[in-house]
């Protein structure tokens, strides 16, 4: 029983990173129908930016947070300008291919410039250690990450449901032409969505570094796929759904691994894919309502 709970805690940490990443993913997915594989590289660059500022430039932790946000937003806006805007309106598959292209270019350029070795991510002192509850270790870093994710979740849901710009986003996702006739500057709203999405990716990258202690150039390749699956699980465009989806994938695959016989442990990544296929076959619109954000 204790083993189960301990595993659950670890999964909560991992899940928080996925949840926040997925929330950002589903926003661009929901609004402009963009399946953005370059999101993984935005995540990676956020993490790497924080790494460079804290570890290399020896600046304090809060500077690393700013670096993560700034790095991810800047790179996301660049990607949008170069790879997405010119082909907008052409079709989801083309956008998907360009995002794949952008992702490949960014990942490999980063590998070229900074190599793909693991870089030790400095954990700030206040996040070291754990609380002890009986025989259980409640790691401070996991508590931190989960709390921030809950905070982000509340903020996002409020943004989407209660603010004017949230309504603008949702109307654009339904019918962009009519939204324009209401006076909504769709161009600007889309840029804002990108910026929010990128910030979330940057925060997720920061979480990753804090939780796992290391970052590398290719770290974005797999998480983005899980973020994608989590988005579909939660209903495309549904931020709360994506967050829950992220936790489901993390907790599900961690628990699966914890209880599988040892030689089948390598099959952990398959959990997410089995869920994905099951989802596509049974309920492609996701567990929650799609398009409603």
């Amino acid at each position, binding site marked *: 029983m204790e083993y189960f709970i301990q595993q659950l805690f670890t999964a909560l940490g991992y899940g928080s990173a996925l949840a926040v990443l997925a929330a950002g993913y589903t926003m661009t997915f929901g609004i402009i129908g963009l399946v953005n594989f370059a999101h993984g590289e935005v995540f990676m660059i956020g993490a790497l930016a924080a790494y460079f500022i804290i570890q290399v430039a020896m600046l304090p932790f809060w500077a690393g947070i700013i670096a993560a946000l700034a790095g991810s937003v800047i790179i996301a806006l660049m990607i949008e300008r170069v790879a997405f805007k010119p*082909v907008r309106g052409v079709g989801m598959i083309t956008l998907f291919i360009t995002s794949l292209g952008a*992702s*490949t*270019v960014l990942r490999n350029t980063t590998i070229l410039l900074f190599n793909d070795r693991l870089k030790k991510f400095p954990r700030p002192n206040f996040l070291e250690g754990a609380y002890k509850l009986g025989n259980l270790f409640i790691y401070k870093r996991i508590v931190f990450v989960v709390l921030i994710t809950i905070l982000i979740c509340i903020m996002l849901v409020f943004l989407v449901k209660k603010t004017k710009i949230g309504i603008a986003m949702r109307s654009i996702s339904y019918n962009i032409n009519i939204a324009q006739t209401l006076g909504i500057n769709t161009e600007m709203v889309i840029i804002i969505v990108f910026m929010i999405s990128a910030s979330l990716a940057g925060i997720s990258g920061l979480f990753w570094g804090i939780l796992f202690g290391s970052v590398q150039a290719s770290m974005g390749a797999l998480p983005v796929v899980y973020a994608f699956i989590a988005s579909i699980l939660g209903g495309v465009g549904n931020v709360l759904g994506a967050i829950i989806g992220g936790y489901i994938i993390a907790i599900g695959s961690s628990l699966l691994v914890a209880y599988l016989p040892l030689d089948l442990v390598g099959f952990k990544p398959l959990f997410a894919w089995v869920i994905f*296929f099951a989802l596509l076959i049974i309920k492609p619109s996701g567990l929650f309502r799609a398009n409603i954000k």
Partner: protein
Amino acid sequence: MTSYKELNRPIKYIIGLVFLLAILYLFDSFLNGFWLMLVLMFGVNVILAISLTITNGWIGFFSIGHGGIMLAGAYAAAFFTVPPSLKRDILDLNLPSFMLDVQISFFPALLIGGIIGTIFGVFLVLPALRLRGFYFCTGTLGFNIIMATIAENLPNVTNGAMGLREFPAYSNIWWVWGIAIVVIYISIRLKKSYIGRAFIAIGKDQDLAEHMGINLLKYKTIAFAISSFFAALGGVLWVHLILNLFPNAFGLILVFEVVTMIVIGGMGSITGAVIGAAIITFFAEVLSPFEEGFYLMGIEVPSLLGLTTVLSGVLLIVVLIFKREGIMGEKEISLNNLRNLLKRKQSEGKIL
């Protein structure tokens, strides 16, 4: 004196074939090293690009999962071509001796690889076929990861992450380009046949095709079967060219490169697939010394790993922005097209 145009069909084909065989013979005799490798890679890439053209270009079901299919075919063929000593020492299969000792020649190995690949391909794709457009596309993303994970976690069968070595170097110019030429021929005939036109109809408007009486499930499955067979052949040829096989051999990087080939060349066109394969293969081979790093007159040029992939990605984005249909679009090169093109250029010259 009859002109070339007036000769009847079979004779034209025979002349063409003899011509091609002569070129292959010349290549075989005189090429080696860098150029030989280039031509062989080109051939394999042509096969892979054509296989992807059928699914992504013709029936319009964009698959990025062919890597998994290639992996299945390659491992299947590998079992039969790898020396028995390797199988005994490294793998841990509870199979009777006669099965472990088997080591067959290339042709049956190719067939087995192709068939296994096709079975996997069809099996994997069937549940995803009812999905549309990009949902399908992302479903196929899983194929690669699923197959690679399976391969990595069955070390008794596949030697896990360490992979298999000691492959006999079967892929020479005759095998590679012989098969490539056959694949090209079949595809061109296919495109003009009823089946091929059904494929393209499905690609243009699935619902309309259904209303015209085309059995969607049947034709989509056939398309994937053919495509998987070609892809698996490509995988087997590849493995016997570079002489090793490991679970991540046909990952997203390779698939992405093949996607780039058909996008550049034009997704619906066989000629486009060939042209795209040529361009990317050339890039890759020319850039490979840069990827590994080398010494030039005493100065070290650092290893730029991933350079090819980066440039392919850039090229892909550029093509998608500026000429979305690719070089050939959906058209093929034919003598008629060339003749019309020449005629147009001539008349334009006269007016000027």
